[in-house]
C-alpha cells in the first residue's frame, strides 16, 4: 500500500482524454536543418503525376511495403500532486502501444503488438525512495511508472512546461514501443506512421527499407512559389523529392504528394509527405523510379472510409492497426478508476 499520493496532496484532474501533440518528435538537442530542394529537380519545379507508374505491387517490386507500423497513446492528465514546495505536478495516465500490420495478398493481418499502461510524471521534486515505492506499487498491478526528468537546474516547476514535458514523455515511450515493433523485421519494406526520426532506433537507416508517411505539416521548407505549387497539387501528383538534412538527426529524402481529393478545411487536406533515409536511397534505389512507385503504393493503400475524418491522409493498414490497438487497450475509464483506487484518490 502506497500513500504517495495522499502524502503529496494528490487530487483528480477533470477533463477529457487528450492525445499528445501529434507533431512532437523526441528532441535531440538544438538542431539546424539544411534543405536541398534541387536533389531531384535542378530546374523549375512542376507537379509530377505518378498514377501511371507500373510495377509497384508486392508481387512486382521488392521494395513494395508489406509492413505498416503505427503507435497509439490514449490518456490524459488524470491527477495532480504537489511538491513539498507547493508546485503542482501533473500525472498522466495512459495506454500506449505499437503495432505492425502485415499485408498478405488482400488481407491485412496484425503481426506484433506491444501495449502498456503507464503513469507519467515528473519525479525529481519527490524523495526517490517514495517514488520507487510508488512505482513498485503500480507495477504490481501491471502499470508502469514513466519518470520525467527535467533539467536538474530547474527550480521552478512551471505548470505549462511540466505538463508539456509529461505528455511528451508518454509519447516518447510510445515511439519506443513502435521502434521495438519495427525492429522485429526492419529488413522487410515497411512504412511507419510519422517521421522516420521518431522511429530511428528501430532500424538501420543504411540498410533497412523503412519509409515514413507524415500526415501533418508544421514547418514546410518550401519557398513561396513551391508552396503555391504544393497547394495546387492534384490527386495523384507529387512535388519533386528534396533532401531534408538536420545536422544531428537522420537525413532523409522527402517529397509531398496528394492522395486525397482535398476540399476540406485546410488547403493541404489530402496531402502527405514521404520520408526515406537518404543513405538507404542512394545505396539501394537511386536512379530508379522508386519515388513514383512508392507514391503509387501510398496512393493505392489510402483509406477509403468516408466516415473516417482523416481518411484523405490515412493509409488503410495504419487505420486498421489503430483499430486493433484500440481493441487491445481496453476500457480507459476502467484503467483510470483503477489508478485512482491504487493512488487513494477519491
Amino acid at each position: 500500500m502506497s500513500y504517495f499520493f495522499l502524502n503529496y496532496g494528490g487530487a483528480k484532474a477533470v477533463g477529457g482524454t487528450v492525445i499528445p501533440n501529434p507533431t512532437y518528435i523526441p528532441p535531440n538537442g538544438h538542431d539546424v536543418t539544411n534543405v536541398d530542394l534541387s536533389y531531384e529537380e535542378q530546374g523549375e519545379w512542376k507537379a509530377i503525376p505518378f498514377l501511371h507508374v507500373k510495377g509497384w505491387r508486392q508481387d512486382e517490386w521488392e521494395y513494395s511495403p508489406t509492413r505498416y507500423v503505427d503507435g497509439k497513446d490514449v490518456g490524459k492528465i488524470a491527477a495532480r500532486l504537489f511538491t513539498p514546495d507547493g508546485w503542482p505536478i501533473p500525472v498522466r495516465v495512459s495506454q500506449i502501444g505499437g503495432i505492425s500490420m502485415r499485408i498478405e495478398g488482400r488481407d491485412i493481418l496484425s503481426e506484433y503488438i506491444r501495449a502498456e499502461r503507464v503513469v507519467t510524471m515528473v519525479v525529481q521534486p519527490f524523495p526517490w525512495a517514495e517514488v520507487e515505492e510508488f512505482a513498485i506499487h503500480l507495477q504490481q498491478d501491471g502499470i508502469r511508472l514513466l519518470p520525467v526528468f527535467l533539467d536538474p537546474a530547474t527550480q521552478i516547476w512551471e505548470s505549462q512546461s511540466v505538463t508539456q514535458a509529461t505528455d511528451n514523455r508518454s509519447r516518447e515511450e510510445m515511439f519506443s514501443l513502435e521502434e521495438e515493433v519495427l525492429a522485429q523485421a526492419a529488413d522487410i519494406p515497411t512504412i511507419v506512421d510519422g517521421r522516420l526520426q521518431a522511429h530511428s532506433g528501430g532500424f538501420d537507416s543504411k540498410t533497412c527499407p523503412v519509409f515514413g508517411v507524415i500526415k501533418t505539416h508544421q514547418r514546410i521548407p518550401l519557398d513561396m512559389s513551391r508552396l503555391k505549387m504544393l497547394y495546387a497539387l492534384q490527386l495523384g501528383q507529387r512535388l519533386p523529392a528534396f533532401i531534408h538534412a538536420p545536422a544531428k538527426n537522420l537525413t532523409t529524402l522527402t517529397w509531398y504528394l496528394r492522395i486525397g481529393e482535398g476540399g476540406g478545411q485546410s488547403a493541404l487536406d489530402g496531402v502527405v509527405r514521404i520520408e526515406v533515409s537518404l543513405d538507404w536511397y542512394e545505396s539501394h534505389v537511386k536512379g530508379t523510379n522508386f519515388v513514383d512507385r512508392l507514391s503509387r503504393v501510398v496512393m493505392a493503400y489510402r483509406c477509403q472510409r468516408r466516415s473516417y475524418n482523416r481518411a484523405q491522409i490515412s493509409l488503410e493498414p495504419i487505420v486498421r492497426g489503430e483499430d486493433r490497438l484500440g481493441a487491445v487497450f481496453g476500457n480507459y475509464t476502467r484503467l483510470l478508476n483503477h489508478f485512482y483506487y491504487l493512488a487513494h484518490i477519491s
Partner: protein
Amino acid sequence: MTDEILVNDSPNGPHAIGKVGSPSGKEATSDQFYFWVDRNALVESTQIVRTSSIIGGQEFRFFALVEQVYRVSDKANIADEWGSTDGNSEEEATFNGQGVTYASARILRADPPVFTPPLEQSKVYMCSDEESGLAYGSDENEAPLTLGKIKNGGNVLAGNGQIDMNYLIGVSGGHMNVNGVAGRGTKSSFLLYTIYMMLQEAERQAKENPGDPTRLQVVPIILNVKGYDLFYIDRWNKNYIPEKHAAAWAAMGIEHPHPFTGVRFFAPQMPKGDVSIPTGSRGTVEAYSWSLSDIIENGLMMYLFASEDAEDMNFSALVLDIESWLTQEDVQPDGTIKRMLRNNPFELHQKTSKKATSDKNAEGIEKDEQGAYAQFNGGSTSFNPDAVPQSFAELAGWVKNISQEIPQKWNSHHTGTWRKLHRRLIKLLHEGKGVLRLDDLKGKPLNLVIRQSSAPIVIDLNSLAKVPGLQRFVVATIFNQLLEDRTGPNAINGLVYLVALDELNRFAPRGAKDAITKLIETVAAEMRSMGVILLGAQQQASKISERVFENAGIHVIGRSGSLEMSQPMWRFLNEKTRTKASILQAEEKLLVQDSFREPMHVRVPFPVWAMRSGEAQAGESNDIDAPNDTPTGLITY
C-alpha cells in the same frame, strides 16, 4: 440421409471456434452470451456449443444453442462499404474487409448448475455428439427415448435427441402435443414415429427384462381422421430409398427399419351388412358398431348427443332418466358393477338381430316383427309405455309415443323436451345407421382392452366426417373404455395406451364444454398417471382446449404458421424460436420438455411406412425390401 455430416467429421475438429465477448451492449447473462468466431471457423445458428469459465475458484461448463450468427464489417456505414471500391461493384477492393463474425448463444445448461454468465475470453468449442446430448440433460434422463438427431447447423447432426419418457407416460408429466401446418408430414407422421420408437423401446425392455412386471408395455391406438391415410402404415413407403434414408435410421440404432406389422384396422360397419365399409385397404378391416344394448352396457348414452344438447339441463336430465330406466346394474363377485340393458318384461320382442322385413315406417325406420313394432310404434291403443326398448328403432318409437301422450311416470319432463329428444334420435339414427345399429340387438363395439404390448390399432373416423357428432361419440367411447380399464381391478402396471388423435381442434375445440371435450380434458389432466396417454396433434394449438394443450408434458412443434406462433399460448417460446418454427423443414421438429431451457431442434428419419395410399408400395408389405437377416428393429408380436 447421405448428405448429412456428423459433427465429429466437422472441419472445425476439437479446436476452439471463438471466444466469449461481453462488451457493453452485448453483455453476457445467465441466459445467454455472445462469442466472436475464429476467422477460420464456420458457425451456424442451431449449433450447440460449449464454453467453460473459472468463476469464484470453480470451473463451470456452459452448454448453449447458437441462436443467431452475425457479421459486422469494419466499416462505419454503408457509404464506407461503397467507398471501398469507389462504388464499382466489378472492382475488387484493395484489401479484404476486416469484418467480424459473432454469434449469440442461449445457455441450455450450466454444469454444475449456476446462474451466472461465462466470462469474456472463455474459449468456445463445438459440442461433440455426447456433449450435445448433455446440453439437454441426457445424463439426467431416467427413461430416455430417442426421437431424432439433434440439429447442429444447416446440414450437420450431433447426438441423439432424447426426451425423458417420464414426461410422456406419466411420471413427471404426460401426453404429447404436436403442432404444425397441414401437408408437410408434420403431425401424423411424427405421432406414428413416436409410437414406433416407443414400441421399439417396449420390445427392448421385453427382451432385457421379460419378467419385470413394470416394464414398458405399449398399446397404440391410432385414430384415422383424414381419408384412409393411416390404413397403409403396414406398407412400405415407395418414396423411402434405403440408400438415401437408411443412414438416418441407423444413426438412431435402428439398422433395419420396417413398416408396422400386425396392425389391426377398424372401420364403421356397413349399414346393411356385417362387414366394414370399403376403405381401399388390401388387408383385413374389421367392422365396428354399437347397438342400444352396447350403449347401455358402456354408459355411453350421453355421448350420443351434441354439446349444446348435453348442456341443456332439461334435455340431459331426460336422457339420464331414460338411461337409468334402461340400465340394469349387477354387482359382480369381484365387486365391480356390470351394466346391461334391462330385459323387456313384456317379451314381445324377438331376440334376434335378423330383421323380418325391410318395410319402413313413416319415419324411415325399418319395422321389426309386428308385435315389437306395435308395442313401440303402434297407436295409442297398442303402445305400452312400460315395454323396455331393446334396439334403437324401438327406442325411437317409444320416445315418439311418449312425447305424444306423456304417461304419469314420465311427466316430470316437459313435452317439448320429449319431442326434442325424439328429433335428435331420429337424426342420429338416420345419420349413423351403420355405426349405431338400428334393429340389431348386438353390435360390434370396439374392444380395445389389451393386456400387453400390441401392434397399433387403427380406427377410422374419417368415414364419419359428415357426422361430427358420431365421430365424437366414437372417440368418447374409446377413451371411456380405456379409462374404465385403467381404473379397474385388472389394470396392468407399466401398460400404456397411446391414443394418437390428429385434428384435436375438432374433438376438443377451444372454449367447448361438450361431453367429448370434457372427456379429452379429463384424459389430459388426470389420466396420464393411469397410463392413458394422448398423442394429439393439430394445425393450430390456439384452436384447441387450453387444458389439453397445457397438460401435454412434451410439445412438438413442426413447421407452423407465423400467425399461429404469434398467439398467446406460444409465449413460453422466445421470439427467435417462434420465428424458427415458421421455417422448419418437413423433417425437422422442435421438442419442448419442461426440463429443457430451450427447445431441442431435431431431425427425424424419413418414414419407412406409407402415410397414404399414393405412397404405398405395390405388393405385399412383408416381401418388399425386407432384409434377409432378422432385423433388430423389426417389430413383431
